[in-house]
C-alpha cells in the first residue's frame, strides 16, 4: 500500500528546515522556493516560538522515507494512503 507523509507531531518541530532542504535536494535544487514542504513560524511570545508544517501532496511522489528519517524532532509519520484505504473497503 502506498504511504503518505503526515506532520502528525507538528508541535515537536524545531524549525531546522532539514525536511525542506531534503525535498528540495530530491527535486534537484537548493533553496526554499517551490518546496512541497514549508515551515512557518507561529509567533506566540518571546520565549515560546513554535512552527507549523505545511505539506503539499506532491511530496508523496518523492522519497518520503528519507524526509521522515531526516527530521530530528520526529514530526512526521508515514501513513497508508486514504484513497487506497477506501478502495480496499469498497
Amino acid at each position, binding site marked *: 500500500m502506498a504511504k503518505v507523509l503526515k506532520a502528525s507531531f507538528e508541535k515537536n518541530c*524545531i*524549525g531546522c*528546515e*532539514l525536511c525542506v532542504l531534503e525535498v528540495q535536494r530530491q527535486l534537484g535544487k*537548493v*533553496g*526554499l522556493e517551490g518546496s512541497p514542504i514549508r515551515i512557518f513560524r507561529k509567533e506566540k511570545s*518571546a520565549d515560546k*516560538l513554535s512552527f507549523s508544517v505545511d505539506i503539499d501532496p506532491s511530496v508523496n511522489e518523492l522519497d518520503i522515507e528519507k524526509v521522515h528519517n531526516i527530521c*530530528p524532532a520526529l514530526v512526521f509519520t508515514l501513513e497508508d494512503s486514504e484513497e487506497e484505504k477506501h478502495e480496499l473497503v469498497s
Partner: protein
Amino acid sequence: MSSLAKKVLYIDLSRQEFEVKSHPDMNEFIGGVGLGAKLALDFGGDDFLIFSTGPLNGFFPFASKTSVLFRDGGKIQDTYLGGSLSTRLRFTGLDAIFIHGVAKEPMVLDIVDEKVSFKPVGEDVGSLGLPGKRSVLDLDENRASLDAYFEGPNNILHKILIQKNLKAMIITGSKTFDIPDRERYEELYAKILARTEDLTVEKSGKPSCSGCPMGCLYSKTGELGGDILVHSLVACTFAEKIYSDTSMVFSCLNVLGYGYTHEEIENFPKLVYDVLSKLDVGTTSHI
C-alpha cells in the same frame, strides 16, 4: 581561484537608496567575518553595519549562522546570529548586506532578494516579505530579536539598530540553485549531517537554526568572536571540529563549484588578520 564574485547589497539609510555591486576582487575573503572585514576596510570608515553569510550557508548542515559586523564606540564588534537568517540571506543570491547612514525617521527595510523597499514604521511587519522564505529582525524598546526568538549575545544589536533608526528588517530569499555534481554533494551532505558526535553541544529540543538538527540551548543567544575560518563560512562554533578541517572545507567548497585551493584555505586566517590589523579593531576581547 574561482571567478565567482562576491555580490553585495549596499543600503544608504540617509538617502533611502540601494545598489548591488559585484566584487570579483573580494572572492579570496570567502564570506562571513572575512568578507565583512574587507568591506569595512574598503568602504566602511566608522559607519557600517554588515550582515554576511558564507558559501556553505543553506547548502551544508551546521553552517547556520550570519555574521554581523559593526563599530561600536571605536570597537569593531563581530557577532553571529542563529535562526533562519543565514539561509534567507544566502538564498537572496547576495553574499552581504552593507548598511550605512542613519534613517531620518524610524524605518523598516523590506529586502526581497536584491530589491529593497523603505517602509515607515506602522507598516504591518507580518505582511512584508514572503511567508516561509523570510526572516524578521525586529527592534522593540528593550531588545533586538530575530524571528521573535533569536538574539545576538548580550542583546548586542539593540544599540546599533537604535543608532541607525532602524525599527525592523525583513529579509526574503527566494532564489534556488542547481548543484552540478548532485551525487557527490548529497554524499558529502549526509556525511556531515551524521557527524553530530563531533559537535560540542547537546540536542535540547529548542528552536533551531536552519540546517541544524540540534535545537541547542545556545541557538537563541548567538555567538561572539571565534575561529576565523569557521566564522567566515559562517558555521556554528559548536561545529568547529568539522569546519576548521581544511580538507573538509575544501571538499564542500569544491563540490559547490568554488575553486579555492587547500593553500588558500590554510592561509585564509592570516589574510583576514592582515585586514583586521589595518582596520583598527579597537580594544575588543573577541575578534
